[in-house]
């Protein structure tokens, strides 16, 4: 084990501590050395400096205060092995590389599948099998990771250093804290994330169960909203389809008062079958005619949709509604409308 760039431990008392730790873990370290050496042999040529991963191994910086709450496991500084990956390494999507052709893979299983193409020796069950987990279970050395970004609290050089537990933690931490956020929530269009998994978690909760008051305040729970409404005069809960109006004095009547004005104009556009004035044809005539006819086809035409259902029909333009009528009736309706 070569100490590359390791820092000399300065304090006498700590040296003893350090040596103790080293002694107790010696066997395991040797085992690890052998296994990592194999790993190094297997993945050379990928252009990625995995050597760094393995060999850059710092002795614990015993100077660190800030032990409190570290890992939540109270790992004393001397008891774990600290690794630091490089930025490129962390951000790289591929972590496993073919030794022969250098193709990169995200998962070890995919790499093993790929290796089959390089010859029969890789098709043996031993080569295809997942590397046994027993080794990692027996491996008593706890690994922790340091963030390469200097100044970050997760960086080994930091005064209150808190290491990260796994490579995945490092990746997520680095992306979240030191990278720009490129993924945006498609619902609220405001929240941005750098890690895709975070975005997905957010989208589960985004826009759901928003309790709004007419003053614009939003609440996470219904009883909170109601307590707010009970407290203030003039506030009402805002129904989801309406936007919260900035109602000041009126007791929440502002919103609904605006609607009838709009209604008058919208009536004309909606009621192609019925109308306010007696001029447009399809309405009263259609109704009167069907009172006399037995099975009059005028019944088909004089639709009087109530608005609630009209939404579906209007949305897909009135042509589609007319499509239900026989074509000659449509023309006759048009003619009557032209009168």
């Amino acid at each position, binding site marked *: 084990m070569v100490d590359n760039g390791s820092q000399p431990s300065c304090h006498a008392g700590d040296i003893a501590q350090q040596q103790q730790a080293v002694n107790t873990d010696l066997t395991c370290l040797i085992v690890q050395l052998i296994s990592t050496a194999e790993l190094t042999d297997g993945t050379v040529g990928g252009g990625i400096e995995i050597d760094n991963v393995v060999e850059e191994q710092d002795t614990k910086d015993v100077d660190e205060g800030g032990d409190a709450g570290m890992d939540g496991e109270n790992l004393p500084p001397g008891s774990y092995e600290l690794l630091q990956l490089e930025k490129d390494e962390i951000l790289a999507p591929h972590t496993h590389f073919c030794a022969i052709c250098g193709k990169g893979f995200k998962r070890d299983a995919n790499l093993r599948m790929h290796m089959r193409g390089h010859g029969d020796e890789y098709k043996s069950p031993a080569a295809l099998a997942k590397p046994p987990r027993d080794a990692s279970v027996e491996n008593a050395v706890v690994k922790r990771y340091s963030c390469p970004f200097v100044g970050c609290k997760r960086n080994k050089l930091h005064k209150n250093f808190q290491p990260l537990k796994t490579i995945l933690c490092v990746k997520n931490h680095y992306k979240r804290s030191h990278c720009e956020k490129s993924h945006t929530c498609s619902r609220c269009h405001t929240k941005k994330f750098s890690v895709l998994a975070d975005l997905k978690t957010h989208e589960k909760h985004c826009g759901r169960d928003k309790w709004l008051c007419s003053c614009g305040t939003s609440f996470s729970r219904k009883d909170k909203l109601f307590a707010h*409404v009970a407290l203030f005069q003039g506030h009402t809960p805002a129904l989801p389809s309406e936007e919260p109006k900035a109602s000041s004095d009126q*007791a929440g009547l502002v919103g609904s008062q605006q609607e009838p004005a709009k209604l008058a104009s919208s009536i004309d556009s909606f009621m192609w079958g019925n109308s306010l004035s007696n001029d447009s044809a399809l309405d009263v005539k259609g109704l009167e005619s069907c009172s006399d006819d*037995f099975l009059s086809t005028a019944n088909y035409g004089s639709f*009087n949709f109530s608005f609630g259902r009209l939404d579906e029909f209007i949305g897909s333009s009135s042509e589609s509604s007319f499509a239900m009528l026989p074509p000659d009736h449509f023309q006759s309706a048009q003619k009557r409308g032209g009168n």
Partner: protein
Amino acid sequence: MSREGRRLDHGGGGGDDVAGGVGVLVLSLDLLGQVLDRLRDPRDRKACRLVSRAFERAEAAHRRALRALRREPLPRLLLRAFPALERLDLSACASLDDACLAAAVAGAAGAGDLRIRRVCLARASGVGWRGLEALVAACPRLEAVDLSHCVGAGDREAAALAAAAGLRELKLEKCLGVTDMGLAKVVVGCPRLEKLSVKWCREISDIGIDLLAKKCPELRSLDISYLQVGNESLRSISSLEKLEELAMSVDVSRCDHVTSQGLASLVDGRNFFQKLYAADCLHEIGQCFLSKLATLKGTLTALKLDGLEVSDSLLSAIGEDCVNLVEIGLSKCSCVTDEGISSLVARCSHLKKIDLTCCNLITNSALDSIAENCRMVECLRLESCSLINEKGLERIATRCPNLKEIDLTDCGVNDAALQHLAKCSELLILKLGLCSNISDKGLTFISLNCTKLVELDLYRCNSITDDGLAALASGCKRIKQLNLCYCNKITDSGLGHLALLEELTNLELRCLVRITGIGISSIATGCKSLIELDLKRCYSVDDAGLWALARYALNLRQLTISYCQVTGLGLCHLLSSLKCLQDIKMVHLSWVSIEGFEMALRAACGRLKKLKMLSGLKTVLSPDLLQLLQAYGCRIRWVNKPLVYKDG
């Protein structure tokens, strides 16, 4: 108005000189209006205005209430014809929808001309929030709105109503879409609310009721029956100082959210409390509630404790505490005994309404006590009290001349009992279902004296024949609701007698296998007010009957013709002619082809609101027809019943 017209009215008097006019024209418009106000029956008023133009003008200027049956004339009526209109009833208006409602009030919005104060839109399922918004904007004096049974109504509709700041009474019974949010909108928008009913709006919870209690201090009457509310709501409600009436019945499945303590805290310290309807709320009544009842000594007038396990001591305590009780409901309460009833009525001599449905331990001695003490009793419900017979009823009939309603379904009633009951000449409602000992003789007794009878239920009284109906038609001319299901001795001639009943509105004739189209024709021509007709399993009724209905029964709104012998032609004609028909049940019409159904349903699709058909038709009818029906707001019930012919 033309000169000629005026001259006709005068009958030869001077030209424009009104003062010198003859007859009605002597009176001013104002006085004529007052005369019309005193005419109770709308048909009398109609007769007046058809006879004289002066009356017509007076009526138009003074008319306060309108019940529209068709929607086409609404704009003219509301905006121009009746300027003084205050009460508008649109519950029976066929095919009423948002566009129509908005159009009807469109001219008045802004000018605030409409003086309408009360609007009834019960069961108007085509009306949504747009129509309601237009209505509220046009009627600034709106005080009372009834939106009951509009099952599609939801929070947006409630929000529309919240714009009526002066609203005092609101009924949202069975508006299933209304949640706490809608209720909150209403209570914030209408702080002067005095009467509110949200019965069956199961989405409302304690949170909504709590806000209601905080925002509407004027509330006097509240109905929260069948909601998922518990003691929390009771606590909130107890802060309403002016509350007088509370109805909070729950499902028979027994709501466990309410305890006796909750009810006790509600009742505590209340000075004005008058009515408490708490059916099925409690398993047993605790001492705390009982003791609180004593505080209501003077004021409690109505108490409903259906489904409760009572005891004699409890009834005695109630009798002692609440001496002013006018209405007591003990329907389906267990352990109601004669002694309990005696101790109850001994002190509550003002009782007018006594409900003892399914209290099957009751015997004639209980009736004796009631007859002895409660001389003013008007409504007596004794369904399934099978130990009762004519002796007890004799006492009641003799001592209680004010009896207006009596329910004796499934009791041991015979002709002798009816002879006694006939002494109650004020009788309005008589229910004799499942009393197979009754025969034409008993009916004759009734018809001789009970001329005011309005509702008669003879369900499964299979000894009734045509002669009984003849007696009925000659004596009880005001009958509106008549149930003759399974009285299978009735034939067409009996129906011919029924044709004399001009006020008949609801008629149920299930499984009368002997009646044919002839009988139905006579009903259709004679009963001009017919609204509901049930002909299920009248196997001999054919197209002829339907033709008659299509031609004459133009007010018909609800019809059941399942299992009848009708063909597609008859059905098509029926559904295209009856403009008011909203609800039709036609299961197992085996002679109607698929094309027949298609044509018939297309002809009526704008008007139908409820439809019941065999589920096999669901796959066979064209999908765009079903879509069309749904678009018009029609609810279709598909049933899967085997085709079995029953006799009774």
